[in-house]
């Protein structure tokens, strides 16, 4: 079963040289986790990195048109970004992120993403769909990176160096996010945690601008990435059964951490319509929050959500949290 070594399968790039290759990276889904790594890696490997612009209404509506109705909103956004990049790049990077840690998965839609994009988006350039699966030695992140570089015609030594630089860029970026976190905001401001997938919370269009709206109301916003990873694992590890989705573990772990330390006055879980793991996890978090006496709201957004409705619910939630603090 396990094939050792690498497959040096190159993409058919029509004779283009690596130096002139434009590698397109859709600004959706795992972009929000790994872009610093990918940008550094592909640039060091000698390609031009082209990221799609932040989600616009137009990109999103293209995605909604191309994807199946039942797909979650961020996956639809990914279709839109892929569609935007298709005529603008030589290679489209759609990795198959199965697992980045043993026995912890991303989500079934990440597993089938390359095929979904290939069957849903027309006029695609060659798709670089390298698989990253930490459960199998032959397709761990490092070998996957070498394979991606090889497909673009980059020699392994240079690819290894590029990967190393990429990892350092990613760690530096994460350290920056973690450091910029606590202590900010006006003294005495109500701290609200906004939990959810990074690709939800940090995409201003599909998150319906929830983070900014809360700040305008006077809240200090805390995101899940600002909770130390060790705490996330420790708290999530106390569940009777190991959570096997990476994103859900972060949501659950940070929610439990915030409930126990009381660092925030309320928790908002931002859930895209159609997200399978959030549907279960949000219910569990809501039950734990109720038992712990922590104000909690799940806010589901989809392509039909009106900004006014979202804003009203945010205001109501914020009022409730503040009243709870005062009383």
């Amino acid at each position: 079963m396990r094939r050792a070594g690498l497959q040096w399968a190159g993409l058919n790039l029509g004779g283009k040289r690596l130096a002139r290759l434009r590698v397109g990276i859709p600004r959706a889904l795992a972009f929000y986790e790994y872009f610093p790594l990918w940008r550094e890696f592909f640039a060091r490997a000698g390609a031009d990195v082209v990221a799609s612009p932040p989600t616009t209404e137009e990109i999103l509506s293209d995605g909604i048109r191309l994807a199946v109705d039942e797909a979650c909103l961020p996956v639809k956004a990914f279709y839109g970004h892929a569609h935007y990049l298709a005529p603008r790049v030589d290679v489209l990077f759609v990795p198959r992120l199965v697992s980045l840690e043993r026995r912890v998965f991303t989500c079934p839609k990440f597993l089938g993403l390359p095929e979904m994009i290939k069957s849903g988006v027309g006029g695609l350039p060659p798709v670089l769909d390298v698989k990253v699966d930490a459960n199998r030695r032959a397709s761990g992140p490092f070998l996957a990176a070498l394979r991606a570089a090889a497909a673009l015609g980059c020699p392994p030594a240079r690819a290894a160096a590029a990967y190393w630089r990429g990892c350092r860029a990613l760690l530096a970026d994460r350290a920056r996010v973690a450091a910029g976190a606590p202590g900010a905001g006006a003294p005495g401001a109500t701290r609200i945690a906004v939990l959810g997938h990074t690709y939800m919370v940090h995409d201003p269009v599909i998150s319906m601008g929830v983070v900014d709206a809360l700040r305008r109301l006077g809240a200090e916003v805390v995101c899940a990435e600002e909770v130390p990873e060790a705490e996330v694992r420790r708290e999530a590890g106390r569940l009777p059964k190991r959570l096997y989705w990476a994103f859900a573990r972060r949501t659950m772990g940070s929610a439990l951490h915030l409930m126990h330390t009381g660092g925030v006055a309320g928790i908002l879980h931002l859930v895209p319509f159609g997200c399978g793991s959030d549907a279960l996890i949000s219910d569990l978090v809501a039950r734990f929050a109720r038992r712990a006496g922590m104000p909690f709201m799940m806010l589901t957004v989809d392509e039909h959500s009106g900004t006014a409705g979202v804003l009203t619910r945010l205001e109501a939630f914020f009022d409730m949290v503040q009243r709870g603090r005062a009383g």
Partner: protein
Amino acid sequence: MRVTFPHMGTLHIPVRAMLAALGVDVVLAPPSGAETVSIGARHAPEFACFPLKLNLGNFVQAHALGADTILMAGGVGPCRFGYYAQVQREILRDLGCQYDMIVLEPPRGHLAELLHQLRELVGRRSLAEVWRAVGLAWEKFLALDAVDAAAMRVRAREARRGETSRAWRLCLEWIDDAPDRAAVRQARDRGLAALGRVGQRDAAAALRVGIVGEVFMVLEPAANLGVAERLGEMGVEVHRSVMLSDWIRTHLFLDALRLRRGDDPVRRAARPYLDHFVGGEGRDTVGHTVLYAGAGYDGVVHVLPFTCMPEIVAKSILPRVTAAHDIPVLSLVLDEHAAEGGVLTRLEAFVDVLWQRRAAAGVVGR
């Protein structure tokens, strides 16, 4: 200890027989129906998948009948099924339903943990007793699948509507009542004979349709609104991609122990379209659709619960299979909001399209 477990099609017949043979006191929830759906939908997360809601409904109903222990399967992802029991435990706790849960997780490499859990359930039993109980259950699985397949063949040409289903329900009773393996085989033969006596119309060519999708939705009539029976009554010969015994063999046994061969024909068929597992039955759905096309079926009905992650991947890819193999696929996304009338209309329209395609192709008979 009074044990209950969730319904899935006719699963309760062999599982109850096995547990009873091991001396376990079994309390079955009433068959899943409108009440089950309504309890499940009221207490489960809104966007949880339909099987979770039905299971939950079963548990609440069984609790009212005195069950105090749940026997449930687990999983290691990425399908949500593996986390059902955890969510259900918290919901039942908040509802005030006192339950112990025995969740059978697929063993990772070593069987000790699983055996320990099973011992907790059945106490100390001799190997011969366990073997006899498992053998009886397996015989019942095979018998149920045999009569199910025969019923789906016979129903397409039945002269009086509903006669096949009546005969089939008798078969279930006979198989359920059979106390040992020989009796199960007799019940099966008696059932097949009864189905053989169902009055047939002249043997006009029937349409052939395969049912693919998430296993619970394929097997549980309360979840799929009896799609196999409805299609049969429209004169369609139905084939299920997953029969109960297949599911036990491949998903509970081979996959859990990682014994399924890499060159499994279903996986091979899926390879040009989806060459990777996506959890649940996502890849099998694609593979079975390709195989049905190759076997000359007229169409495929794909049943999936609303928000099912692996099947959404499959649904995104099936249009490519349809285009490449010229096989019509009807995807039915179902949950508590699915109305029988709406589904029936869509099935009728689909069957009409399939007959028109046959007429256009000039195929008479098969």
